[in-house]
């Protein structure tokens, strides 16, 4: 973005790195203060100390489960990158650094709630019980959208065109409301997604219809090579006010804060209170995808800082200090993560290309004669 056009803006996502801008890089972790604007809701600081009421109403075994899931998800994410390098997956978009944002939010959902994801929510998918091998068939190039059953898993298909899943979520939530269900819809999207017309139209319509919806934005600082400060001159959570519903800014690397914020938003929605927009401040530690080289556009120091504010280390520190878990538990989780990653790897590597006919088998529920003729001709039948 033209420096001359960006007057008044910090030129980089976090105001940390940046050419032509003299920023004295603060040592230590990425802190909320590095983000422009309003400080987020935070319960556990980067160093693992409590800074708010950490009693979010979860039993110790559930608190442990949160850590377990984060550890398992990260391990799988790294395995996926390895699988891509080995040619077993096509381009893969990693989520390292965003485990708390995804798992904390997905964890707050009830079994009947429904999720519409983007392409980066494997960690959330695992929480919802989506089969990892089936999910990864998308990234293997076996099937667009992922061949898992969205109705059974209550997790929508992987959605690529930025922000287009947001109106889907609005429609789904409207359906829930019309059915008088006690269920909600949650939709994930990124900071960059908030610049699309579909974000706006969906959010505004959600407000008008007062549907039970949580709009969950993972602001991970970057949209490919464009930092959030160049994506918008405002703060994302503040958009909610213009739509007439609450907006919340939460530390997306604080799993307890994310959980609490999502739980509250879902409770509001369930009670007929309509939508909430949650902006979770997190950080994309890795590349946009395995096809991307962030060295071209961002300073490594930012990444180091983000690592020092790691959501898993932070939560583990807090959990250990709180006495709800011990080191043995952490080791156990790591063991489970390793085993799971290997199991998924094996499943992925085993996945074969679908038969050619499948290209024609689901286009229509009621294929016309003309379509069937085309199909036969194409298949040389």
């Amino acid at each position, binding site marked *: 973005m033209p420096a001359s056009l960006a007057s008044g803006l910090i030129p980089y996502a976090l105001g940390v790195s940046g050419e032509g801008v003299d920023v004295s890089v603060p040592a230590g972790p990425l802190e909320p203060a590095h983000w422009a604007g309003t400080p987020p809701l935070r319960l556990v600081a980067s160093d693992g100390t409590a800074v708010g009421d950490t009693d979010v109403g979860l039993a110790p075994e559930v608190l442990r489960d949160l850590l377990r899931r984060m550890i398992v998800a990260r391990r799988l994410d790294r395995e996926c990158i390895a699988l891509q390098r080995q040619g077993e997956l096509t381009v893969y978009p990693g989520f390292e650094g965003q485990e708390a944002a995804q798992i904390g939010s997905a964890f707050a959902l009830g079994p009947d709630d*429904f999720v*519409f994801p983007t392409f980066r929510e494997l960690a959330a998918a695992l929480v919802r019980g989506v089969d990892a091998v089936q999910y990864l068939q998308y990234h293997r190039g076996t*099937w*667009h*959208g992922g*061949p898992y*059953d*969205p*109705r*059974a898993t209550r997790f*929508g*298909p992987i959605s690529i*065109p930025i922000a*287009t899943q*947001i*109106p*889907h*979520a*609005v*429609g*789904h*939530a*409207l*359906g*829930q409301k*019309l*059915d008088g269900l006690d269920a909600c*819809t949650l939709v994930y999207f990124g900071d960059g997604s908030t610049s699309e*017309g*579909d974000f706006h*139209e*969906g959010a*505004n*319509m959600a407000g*008008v219809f007062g549907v039970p919806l949580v709009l969950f934005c993972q602001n991970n600082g970057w949209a490919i090579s464009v930092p959030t400060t160049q994506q918008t001159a405002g703060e994302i959570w503040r958009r909610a006010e213009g739509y007439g519903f609450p907006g919340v800014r939460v530390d997306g690397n604080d799993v307890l804060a994310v959980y609490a914020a999502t739980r509250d938003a879902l409770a509001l929605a369930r009670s007929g209170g309509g939508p909430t927009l949650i902006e979770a401040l997190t950080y994309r530690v890795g590349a946009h995808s395995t096809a991307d080289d962030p060295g071209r556009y961002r300073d490594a120091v930012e990444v180091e800082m983000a690592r020092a504010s790691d959501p898993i280390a932070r939560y583990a520190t807090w959990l250990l200090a709180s006495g709800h878990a011990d080191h043995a538990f952490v080791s156990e989780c790591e063991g489970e993560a390793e085993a799971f990653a290997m199991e998924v790897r094996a499943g992925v590597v085993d996945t074969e290309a679908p038969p050619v006919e499948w290209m024609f*088998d*689901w*286009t*229509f*529920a*009621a294929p*016309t*004669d*003309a*379509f069937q*003729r085309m199909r036969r001709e194409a298949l040389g039948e």
Partner: protein
Amino acid sequence: MSEAARGPATQAREWTLSGALNQALRDALTEDPRLLVFGEDVGRSGGVFRVTDGLQTEFGPNRVFDTPISEAAIAGTAVGLAFAGWRSVIEFQFDAFSYPALEQVIDHVAKMRERVRGRVDMPITIRIPSFGGIRGKEHHGESPETYYVHTAGLKVVVPSSALDGYTLMRHAIADPDPVVILEPKVRYWSKEAGELEADGPGIGVGRVVRDGDGAAIVTYGAMVATCVEAADALTADGVQARVVDLRSLSPLDDELLATSARETGRVVVVHEAPRTLGMAAEIAARLMELAFDHLEAPVGRVTGHDVPYPSASLEAHYRPSVERIRTAVLEAVNY
């Protein structure tokens, strides 16, 4: 009282296209409690062309409702509702106002079922008042069919008359797949007497509206009446022209096209859309494939020109006229 409320659906009477479409929506809403109708100004006001007149009063504001001016979100909402087991009829107010939703329609309405391997159907009917001839403002006279017909995963129909409007609308709504229905706005007030039939000819089936074996004029929508007029005029030239009303643009009725070509040897396709990659291109290409040896002349194309749809004062020079059609048929006959 809305027009349609005057008599039961099955009783023979005179219908306007607008009234017949209204009755189709009413009957479908009655039969299927999980059908919704929504869009801009379709609720309280009953639609710019009265097609949804009275429906909100009759079925309540949870079934028939107005939305903000957000075409992309209207289409996207219908997709989400399908995930929740609801069937939708959505309206884009005029042809060009369907364009803001093209991403949602191309990427999701058309592809979602394939993406989820049939776990979720997309029973979405997209109503678009279309085509020119109403002395409309800019963007109110366009022919958007190519954008939809080229998009795999959609079905596209165009009624040319009131009774067939009812039939096609009922088929569109009943279909488990997304169907775009382009309503020729210049014919909304044209009347036709007869009985409404929910299970008349379906999607993919064309019809011969005027018989003849000297040439075949293939068309759809508002142009059907114009082509019939041209065919009538052609009798003075000694040509008995058949007029084929396609009804369904996707899929096309290949049998009917092939038969017409074989039986007449001379085919002229007529539409308002710009010529390049308009429907006539596809039909010409197909006829070569289906009936090459029977064609005595190149398939003629009488179409809009490859320029933006003009203002009211010029639209008569843009839309195919009886005279242009007649000339093209004679050219084909005398080839």
